[in-house]
């Protein structure tokens, strides 16, 4: 039992994780739904009243209630995986990535007493909200996610997982875009933003 709990708490092999994600998609399809997380952002805009101003948000959001419940579950799942069955080891990334990040002043993932080893405190510590660099990264990054996913009609779950699984050429174009943007950010813009 302890061995099982330890295995559950630690970092999972990529094949197990990938299989579980595919399983999630199948179970949503079986329920007549589709695996697409970014739709929740549109639903949340509608709930906030955006439908009165723009037709794009004027839809019956109750049809998307299941997806909001799924998102709420994703929050609880994150809580359970982090607080109830925490991984005793910090996220273990390759040493070349650690060296590259160190050259920009980003510390390696480490269990720094209660704070998360999943994200760098240099960007995600709560007091970063009040720094220019933090604002650019968090507000700017969030805006790009919200605008980009809706224009592309989906995110990693909708296009990269479901769309590619369903052999959709548009999704392949979207995923090429995801990577073009990601490579541009990591290799070109991120070093500039971190230097703010």
């Amino acid at each position, binding site marked *: 039992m302890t061995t099982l709990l330890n295995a559950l708490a630690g970092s999972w092999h990529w094949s197990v994780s990938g299989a579980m994600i595919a399983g999630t998609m199948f179970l949503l399809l079986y329920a007549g739904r589709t695996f697409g997380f970014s739709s929740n952002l549109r639903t949340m805009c509608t709930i906030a009243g955006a439908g009165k101003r723009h037709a794009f948000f004027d839809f019956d959001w109750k049809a998307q209630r299941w997806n909001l419940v799924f998102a*709420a579950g994703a929050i*609880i799942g*994150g809580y359970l995986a*982090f607080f109830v069955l925490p991984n005793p080891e910090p*996220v273990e990334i390759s040493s070349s990535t650690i060296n590259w990040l160190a050259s920009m002043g980003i510390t390696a993932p480490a269990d720094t007493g209660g704070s998360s080893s*999943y994200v760098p405190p240099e960007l995600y510590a709560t007091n970063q909200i009040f720094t220019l660099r933090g604002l650019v990264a*968090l507000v*700017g990054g969030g805006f790009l996610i919200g605008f980009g996913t809706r224009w592309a009609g989906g995110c990693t779950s909708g296009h990269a997982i479901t769309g590619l699984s369903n052999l959709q050429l548009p999704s392949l174009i979207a995923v090429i875009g*995801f990577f073009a943007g990601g490579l541009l*950010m990591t290799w070109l813009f991120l070093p500039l933003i971190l230097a703010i």
Partner: protein
Amino acid sequence: MKILYYLFLGIVFGFVMTKSEAISWYRIQEMFRFESFHMYGIIGTAVVLGGGGIALMKRFDIKTYNGNELNLKDKDWSVPRYLFGGTIFGLGWALTGACPGPLFTLLGQGIWAIGLVILSAMLGTYVYGAVRDRLPH
């Protein structure tokens, strides 16, 4: 009961995203720098198994639990919409180290700054909804 089904699936998904470390900003940087196979392994496994499963579901005409067709519509053909929208999302993905699912899962870790990212993602979606008629689709 249906609510519990989606809640359960969401909990499993959030748990998997955490244990797979796909929610980690560090993992996303490592992926875009091609310095580990980990993230490619996760996405690759999901797509290979997902593709095989969907092909089988179509081959054997599997229906939903209540006998309807599966919700797998073909996406409308376009290039600019997917390429430009996708690139903009990719920029945000690599900057925040999170796609929309992990945004919510990280909130469960008590990383309050992610709340700001979620709010600005809503703003980004709102601005898209306001200007979408002027964008190529």
